[in-house]
């Protein structure tokens, strides 16, 4: 296999919580520009995989190569700078802050963080603020144009679907190479999920270099948007392939092993 065609390569990743092996010698490759579906029953280690990749947890063994660089066990900040951004299964927006503020948190690496720039040079700061405001607005317009006019309202006052959109914008604003979506449709109706997936596909179309891993339970979604799927069970990869292959294989698994 050609390493260049793979954006992310995980080799034999293992993460234990005490006696529990949450991911177990997991190896996985993600091709550039694809949408990879990560599926498996609750507790099979999908979220833990994201947490290990993004540096929230250190792995117990194994390595991760991203875009040709070893990022195993780098701190979360370095993983972000390398070009990986994510959403969380249980939304982790800052509810008391405005939409704009939340999106700007994700934009950290494009904002000038110097003490003097921020405190002393208000003119220069204002130019950067206006520039970044426009960027945030353009991005959120893809998801829901009305939100672009409510940028300075607290996120806590918006319904779940809007919060998901904002959270995805927060991840996208830094222009990551790899976007990790952890159950973006959780708690939403069927219609809302369809809408959100349309938006994600639209972003994918507009941005030239974006790879996505999506954790998702709804098989319809997986069928529709993914190029490739990986199925986890008890922290292990039990199969990989296109949706059709995996679905066929899963029926076999279900029939013989009783896994659901």
């Amino acid at each position, binding site marked *: 296999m050609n390493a260049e065609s793979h954006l992310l390569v995980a080799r034999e990743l293992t993460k234990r919580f005490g006696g529990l092996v949450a991911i177990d010698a997991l190896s996985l490759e993600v091709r550039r520009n694809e949408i990879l579906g990560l599926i498996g029953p609750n507790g099979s280690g999908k979220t833990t995989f994201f947490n290990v990749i*993004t*540096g*929230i947890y250190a792995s117990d063994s194994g390595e991760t190569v991203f875009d040709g660089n070893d990022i195993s066990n780098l*701190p*979360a*900040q370095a*993983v*972000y*700078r390398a070009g990986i*951004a*994510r959403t*969380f299964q249980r939304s*982790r*927006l*800052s*509810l*008391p*802050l*405005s939409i704009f*503020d939340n999106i*700007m*948190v*994700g934009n*950290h*690496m494009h*904002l*000038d*963080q110097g*003490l003097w720039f*921020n*405190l002393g040079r*208000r003119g220069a*700061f*204002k130019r950067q*603020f206006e520039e970044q*405001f426009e960027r945030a*607005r353009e991005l959120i317009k893809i998801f829901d144009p009305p939100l672009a006019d409510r*940028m*300075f*309202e*607290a996120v806590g006052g918006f319904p779940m679907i809007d919060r998901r959109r904002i959270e995805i914008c*927060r991840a996208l604003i*830094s222009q990551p190479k790899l976007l990790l979506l952890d159950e973006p449709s959780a708690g939403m109706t069927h219609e809302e999920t369809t809408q959100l997936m349309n938006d994600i596909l639209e972003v994918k179309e507009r941005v030239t270099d974006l790879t996505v891993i999506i954790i998702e339970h709804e098989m319809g979604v997986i069928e529709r948007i993914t190029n490739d799927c990986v199925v986890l069970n008890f922290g292990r990869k039990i199969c990989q392939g296109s949706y059709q292959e995996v679905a066929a294989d899963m029926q076999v698994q279900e029939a013989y092993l009783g896994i659901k």
Partner: protein
Amino acid sequence: MKRTLPEFGVLLPGIAGLIVLTVYLALLLQVESQTEIAALLVIAVVAALAATRFGVMPRIGRSFREFEGPFSLAIACAVLVMVAYFHEDHFILLLIATVIIYIIVTLGLNIQFGFVGMLNFAGAAFFGVGCYTAAVLTKNTPLPHLLILVIGGLMAAFIGSLLILPVLRTRGHYSAVITIAFGLLFKIFLEVNDVLGGPQGLHVDGMNVLGWEFNKNIEIGDDLEISFYVNYIIVGLLVLGLSFTLVRRLERSWIGLNLDAIRLDETAAACFGLNLIRWKVTAFTVGNFLIGMAGALYAMMVGFIAPTNFTFGDSLIMVSIVLLGGIGNPWGLVVATIILVIVPEKLQAIQEYRFLLFATMVMLMLLFRPEGLLPRPLRTYFPAWKPR
């Protein structure tokens, strides 16, 4: 641009509020009969409740937000008017100066607790570091006194960052624990340290800027004598103005955003590249700088400091002001400081019970209005700015 009518409508509640508050405060400061003071306080509570009930508060808040610069100047002028009115009354002027200095302290605590979420229970100790720095430097060095204010701040900032660095890698409220320990140790250290005067404390020289002697009453003509505290009020107002501007700019920048993001969710903040240690150290250091600077000014004003000025109880009062005022809102701090400093001084009946009273107030506040007297509004980076 022509002044339009709606703009005046926005200004009016603020102007009215400012005038009413100034007159009220002057009255409260002047009156000495305990029953009259009690009556004034009851009136204030009723008026505040009524104003909240009828939606006057948000309108006053809006005036202040949209015209913050002009209103800040107007408040400084209002203070000067009060000062002119009370020009010979040492006690009242000392009280006003103390309020100003305490506001600077709570602005510092607000950066730490209100913005980045670090509890500092050693406010009085960092204040004390500034005080003792001023005492030692005024006595032993010819350094200009304005510079000593800055050095007082730097000392507090330096000691604070030494203290906090080891616990920053851990999560949770370790800053609370370590500052409690530091506050207690600081007082013991002062008491056993003979060089710093031990339990008896130290004398501090009055401020002197380019020959302008702060501790002399100002004499104008033959029969007009103005209390020397006015000097300290003027410098205090200048330092307060700078501190307030600093806090405001901090809040309305990416740094303010970083601090909020860290307070609200460290894990999410780390996932978007925020360096938790850098921003916590920044907030803690800048906060202690303000506290130390205020301490140095206070020491020169009162001329005498002793370990008993810097107890854990004093630190608690400082934290209660932040909780009461409205966590993260500098205007809330101004209001809460005025209440918590002036009321116990005027109402002697509660002097002895003031800790009990403060504790009750804070508890009631946390129960019924956890966002404080004046809740913090959403961040506006440039108040008058509108998207195109």
